[in-house]
């Protein structure tokens, strides 16, 4: 640790906030360009984003809270080895805490109940539990470092139960993806931050999926390791494309699945992965 860390963390947090603020505009631009991947998905467009500047509505506390904790959670995720705001020993726990607050408030404003958000996060935790046991660490960097050595070492395909838990994780992400605008009258900074938070939640969860299951900053071949941030960005975009494909299938990613189907599936895969881990002698 050097003394420049807090300053770097400050700049990283600011940079993350800027990227998250720009993300809905990028989606709107892609939508305007008739991007095939985004076809049929309810996303913010330039007209709805431009309408935010019609009325100077001040942000409510909940909107500010959601956006800030989501941006902080995103800042904790590593883009490369040490490329993150704060290299926390219990980074995964901190991330889950921030994601819990953001997802709960967003789902509360959509559904009027915290049940789907709590079920979704319980599912995500159950999906991540076997990975924590594999690495014996809650450090996000350790999760990635444990997957070094090419595609064969990525947690997603290391054993069949982890593949299943990865699939459950992706379905949960799709189910947790909120609609772009709940209140048609939303405007001003409040509407802008709410739209941004809704558009960015799947992106942030996708980044965690990349870190936890897809080798993070490592390339699919060890010989191609390097340009770590580019590897992470490309993987994030690929998972987002998969998420968009899933999002078009409404029956697969209904919010109702978060109440008990997805948690049950996650529990079964989690127990299976732990049994596999113990029987294979990886945990003693």
């Amino acid at each position, binding site marked *: 640790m050097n003394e420049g860390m807090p300053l770097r963390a400050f700049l990283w947090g600011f*940079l993350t906030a800027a990227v998250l603020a720009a993300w809905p505009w990028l989606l709107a631009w892609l939508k305007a360009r008739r991007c095939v991947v985004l076809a049929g998905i309810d996303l913010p467009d330039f007209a709805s984003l431009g309408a935010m500047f019609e009325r*100077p509505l001040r942000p409510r506390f909940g909107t500010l809270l959601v956006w800030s904790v989501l941006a902080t959670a995103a800042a904790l995720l590593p883009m490369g080895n040490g490329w993150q705001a704060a290299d926390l020993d219990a980074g995964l726990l901190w991330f889950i805490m921030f994601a819990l607050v953001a997802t709960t408030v967003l789902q509360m404003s959509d559904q009027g109940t915290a049940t789907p958000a709590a*079920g979704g996060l319980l599912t995500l935790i159950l999906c991540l539990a076997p990975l924590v046991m594999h690495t014996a660490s809650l450090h996000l960097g350790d999760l990635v470092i444990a997957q070094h050595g090419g595609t064969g070492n990525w947690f997603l395909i290391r054993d069949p139960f982890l593949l299943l838990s990865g699939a459950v994780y992706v379905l949960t992400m799709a189910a947790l993806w909120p609609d772009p605008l709940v209140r048609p009258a939303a405007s001003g900074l409040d509407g802008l931050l709410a739209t941004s938070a809704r558009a960015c939640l799947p992106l942030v969860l996708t980044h965690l999926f990349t870190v936890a299951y897809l080798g993070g900053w490592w390339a699919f071949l060890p010989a191609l390791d390097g340009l770590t941030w580019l590897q992470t960005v490309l993987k994030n975009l690929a998972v987002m494309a998969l998420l968009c494909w899933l999002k078009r299938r409404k029956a697969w990613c209904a919010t109702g699945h978060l109440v008990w189907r997805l948690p049950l599936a996650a529990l079964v895969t989690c127990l299976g992965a732990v049994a596999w881990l113990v029987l294979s002698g990886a945990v003693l």
Partner: protein
Amino acid sequence: MDSGSSTSSTPELFTSAASMQLTSLAAAVGGVLLGVLLIAAGTGWMTRRRRGPEIDSRHGVMLSHGITHGSAGDSAADSAGDSRQIAAHLRLATASMLAVVLLPAAAAIRQLWPHPDLGWVMIASWFAVLLPVVVIWLVLGRFFVAESSTRRPPA
């Protein structure tokens, strides 16, 4: 991350590595808040540029001063859903309290006193806590689905 080792015989209660990590986290939150502040300033500037210092006839307020009031229609709609909103706020408050109290406490304990070996202890404690929570959750989830499917909307 050498957060637990020390050359002296007396273990540190709050290691320098842990305090640096928490300082970095606080700095990151500060950076995010600066970002929000700049977005707020940019949004305010864009709004003024678009509309100018005109008076909004619907709201009867000077928009260039950034002051807004809800219309009568908005107020009626708000009051109609009051009882539902109060229940929703209570549930939100419960969930927030859990998030605000439990998880940071767990994160802080893990952060400040890292366990040297996350093997069987980790698995046992994880499942001892998680399994009852999951089982209760699933039972309640089934009950919730059954109850909401039998409920009829008021005529």
